[in-house]
């Protein structure tokens, strides 16, 4: 009994300590909760659930982005194109299976068919990430480290252009979409209706994030990634092959964006410029919570989702980009390194 109170007390102390160190954090969370309540009153609980489901996806996207940023100091502009590649991959894997199933119904196969798409997207995203890292960022890194952040940023801009226009060239500008992954009636819950697709997209995001958390915290390689992000020279000194870790990180980040693209295919569809909005969202999150702060990106995903839902509820859908951007600008002015604090070294360079 006594032990319990003591544990509680230390917990309380550490929370207080944290709040003292970063007063913006509880403020941001409090504001989000207030927004959530207002949305709930004005738009009903379904609107809140919407925001939560969307938040899961932005969290997944932003985590990939912030990981690449934290470990490699590469501010990735083609994260949206990774999303696009994932969407296309899922489409091309899922559609033939789907067509086959239309003629030969098979309950088991139709339950697992979407997974083939997700898995393929993850793998293709991973491969794409490693190829690009070796082809573009490795040469730059071995050339010069001067102005690294800015130069690598511009490289990702170039890659983004090549990818989206390359896909346009090869596959054409056509939209490729699916009606839905699982053709079952939506789940009803009070006034809330959620399709299995959306629910699963959220679920998938959470599982991937959980796996990532485990991987980063508990495995040797995951620890090596964190070590590289904290001190590159130190990591080299303990015998970590930094180049491999960079490639791995990049591939993981890209793969996560691709998974998001695959999971949201039913909503976004696949076309060459589909990645633009996801890219905006991911950057909103990352700038909001602080560059390279992986765990905070998850929280940030939900904050941004609530902000967007509130914008659409109260301002109208055409203000969807303006209001969140202005909020981000204010955040940047007030807290340049994000509300949770940046964890990136070297980003302060000129």
């Amino acid at each position: 009994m006594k032990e319990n109170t003591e544990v509680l007390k230390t917990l309380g102390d550490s929370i207080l300590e944290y709040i003292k160190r970063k007063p913006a954090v509880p403020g941001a969370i409090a504001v989000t909760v207030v927004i959530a309540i207002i949305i709930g009153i004005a738009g009903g609980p379904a609107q809140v659930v919407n925001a939560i489901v969307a938040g899961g996806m932005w969290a997944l996207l932003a985590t990939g982005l912030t990981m690449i940023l934290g470990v490699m100091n590469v501010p990735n502009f083609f994260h949206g194109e990774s999303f696009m590649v994932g969407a296309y991959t899922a489409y091309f894997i899922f559609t033939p299976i789907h067509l086959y199933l239309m003629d030969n119904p098979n309950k088991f196969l139709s339950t697992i068919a979407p997974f083939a798409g997700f898995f393929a997207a993850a793998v293709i995203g991973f491969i794409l990430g490693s190829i690009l890292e070796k082809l573009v960022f490795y040469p730059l890194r071995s050339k010069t480290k001067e102005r690294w952040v800015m130069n690598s940023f511009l490289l990702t801009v170039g890659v983004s252009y090549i990818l989206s226009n390359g896909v346009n060239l090869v596959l054409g500008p056509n939209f490729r979409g699916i009606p839905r992954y699982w053709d079952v009636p939506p789940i009803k819950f009070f006034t809330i209706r959620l399709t299995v697709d959306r629910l699963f997209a959220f679920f998938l995001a959470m599982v991937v994030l959980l796996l990532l958390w485990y991987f980063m915290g508990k495995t040797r390689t995951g620890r090596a990634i964190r070590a590289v992000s904290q001190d590159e020279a130190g990591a080299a000194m303990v015998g970590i092959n930094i180049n491999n870790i960079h490639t791995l990180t990049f591939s993981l980040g890209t793969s996560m964006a691709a998974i998001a693209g695959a999971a949201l295919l039913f909503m976004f569809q696949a076309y060459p410029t589909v990645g633009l909005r996801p890219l905006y969202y991911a950057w909103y999150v990352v700038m909001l919570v602080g560059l390279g702060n992986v765990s905070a990106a998850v929280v940030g995903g939900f904050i941004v989702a609530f902000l967007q839902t509130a914008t659409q509820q109260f301002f109208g859908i055409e203000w969807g980009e303006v209001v969140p951007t202005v909020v981000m600008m204010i955040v940047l002015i007030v807290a340049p390194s994000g509300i949770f604090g940046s964890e990136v070294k070297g980003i302060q360079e000129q």
Partner: protein
Amino acid sequence: MIKSTGKASTIARTLMSRTGFSSSGIILIAILAVLPFIPPFNSEYILRWLVVGAFMAAQAVAFDLTAGFINVVNFGFAAILGVGAYTSAILANTGPHIIVQPGISPWIGIFIGAFASAFLGFILGFLTLRLRGLYAAIMAWFVGIALLGLARTLTPLTRGSLGMSPPSFFDTPSNMPYYYLALGMMITIYIVTKLVTTSHIGLAFKALGQNFDAARASGINPTFYRVFNFTLSCFFAGLLGGFYAHYFVSMTPKAIMHTSKSVETLAIAFIGGRGFLWGGIVVAFPFVFLLEYLRSALPQLPGIHIIIYGVLMILVMIYYPNGVAGFITELKKKLWRLRKPEKT
């Protein structure tokens, strides 16, 4: 007599060097000035490419003032250019589809537009004041997205994505007057930029760009220089925006204010060589020609020119961060070294 010509040439040379023109620069300008009379450049469609070339070159110079000197990549450049374009276009409007019909001449509107852009640049300078490198770039990007969103949303003024058709500068289908207008703007912007950057202000820019803290410690007031830089660069952007509005006479927020437009300018400025100013000019013309040629020669490969943009940009960034201008400068130095022994 000999003495006085010597003096005159010295004065000419100082003037040239002050305004940043070497003899090859003068030759280049002269060639550009007579180009519209030489076949095949005298046909209307090639003239059109030349106009676009001069327009892009001028943009690259204005962009380089921020990117190459104080080292902040202005991702909202196109959006600010768009503000100039929209201001001038709205002021010139006489049609019923926009709620105001001031009907002001484009020749006046273009300057009001430029001042509107300059004002935004002024604000952007303050917004990014405390931010370094990447943060400043992203702030500018967000400002750009917000401006684009506003231009889309304020449909009573801008007609949003429905597009606007502002009046043109000249009442002729010929591109000739536009070419000389664009060329004049390009040269003016270059001279002003060069004068500023070769003065002590330019030194302060460079110092701030290389090491913000050290520059501040040595007594350079970052507020003034940064805000001044942004204001000037955005003023030029607004001016060019006005040109866009009354030359292309059709605009939508997406077609001028999108981030991809900033990136196009960036690509030209950086392939040209950042911090050189003239690099963008040297690159812009062949670039526009290459891209337009590809677009018309390979219509079955849409967007191939943008892919080439991307690949060139990546190659230059990795293997030759000083761009074409840096390459030419180094080549010149080498030639100089080769020539020297002959002289002595």
